[in-house]
């Protein structure tokens, strides 16, 4: 699902996008909402789909592309199933956010900003999540984990990968 391969998948995607766009009555002002729905479905915005959105809304592609690159909520590259944000803000930095990030990078085998090859995790840094008292803070899929130490990371990651393998069965 992360990369569309078969003709069938492409067809499905095209129909899906058309459905979303007509749900917003193809209004160009709804561009952001449309992109949000697509991002939720695919966890990124594939190029073909952006082209389709531009055509169906009657907008120049660059306008759609500009919006897609402006907001952090949108991604142009495939993202993992779980998104991990490690806070590197001032307070978290002082409390060891840097080493939490390094440990994450080591355990996942990817660098900040990358996605694991199994498409399970995307690792990112943020600058302050407004929960400084809990620092260092790590947010995974919207849930906050405070006072994270390098030791805790293994357990945290295991929880999320386990949950995935369970749901696969």
């Amino acid at each position: 699902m992360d990369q569309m391969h078969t003709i069938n998948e492409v067809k499905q995607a095209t129909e899906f996008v058309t459905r979303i766009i007509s749900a917003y009555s193809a209004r160009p002002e709804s561009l952001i909402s449309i992109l949000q729905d697509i991002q939720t479905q695919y966890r990124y915005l594939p190029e073909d789909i952006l082209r389709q959105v531009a055509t169906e809304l009657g907008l120049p592609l660059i306008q759609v592309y500009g919006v897609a690159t402006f907001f952090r909520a949108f991604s142009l590259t495939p993202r993992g199933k779980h998104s991990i944000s490690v806070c590197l803000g001032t307070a978290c930095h002082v409390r060891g956010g840097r080493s939490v990030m390094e440990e994450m990078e080591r355990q996942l085998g990817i660098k900040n900003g990358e996605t694991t090859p199994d498409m399970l995790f995307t690792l990112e840094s943020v600058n302050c999540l407004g929960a400084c008292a809990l620092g260092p803070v790590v947010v995974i899929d919207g849930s906050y984990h405070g006072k994270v130490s390098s030791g805790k990371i293994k357990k945290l990651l295991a929880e999320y990968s386990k949950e995935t393998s369970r749901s696969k069965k």
Partner: protein
Amino acid sequence: MVTISIDGIRTVVPEGTTVLEAARDLGIAIPSLCHNPGLSPYGACRVCIVEVKKGERSTIEASCTLPASDGLVVITNSERVRKNRKVLIELLVSSCPTSKTLQDLAANYGVNRIRFAIKDKNCILCGLCVRYCKEQMQSGGIGFVGRGTSRKVATAFGVTPQECRNCGGCEWICPVCERACTAANLTNGLCGGCQNLMHVETCELCVHCSESVNARGHRVY
């Protein structure tokens, strides 16, 4: 019609006129970079700033986006304006030292040092190209991509879009896409060379004013 005062000159202009236009109609020189009479006002470069008097106090505003309104009192060339403008030009040059337009601006407004780190981005985000493409060519081939420090002018996915009419207007209007100034190789990022040191050809009536700025090779033809 509205009545405003610019540098002590009372003038009556139609509603909707900007202070920049009103001043230029009076022959008052205000520099501008991101303004173009054929395009919508944008207010990105800020070099067109003027001082607006409000009783005892005054504010600094961009004249290209400031509509003339009744009773407005504007000073275009106060100490405060000049000081602020110099800093703005410094910032612009530091982000694009190879632009001849910017180097000339710096030379003309007496900027003689750059206190900011020189980071040549080859673009000052003035938005002229984007507006030209959209408003004059009805094309929308290029636009702003990304945000913050990574904001730049680009095409979608880095390929020339089918909307592009190959008019070349975006390059033509850009204050930066031109024969590169060599200033980047000079110390402190400033040159001023074209203004002061190049061969200047003058007519018989020349009063040699530019000798005061040390013009070399000044010659009457």
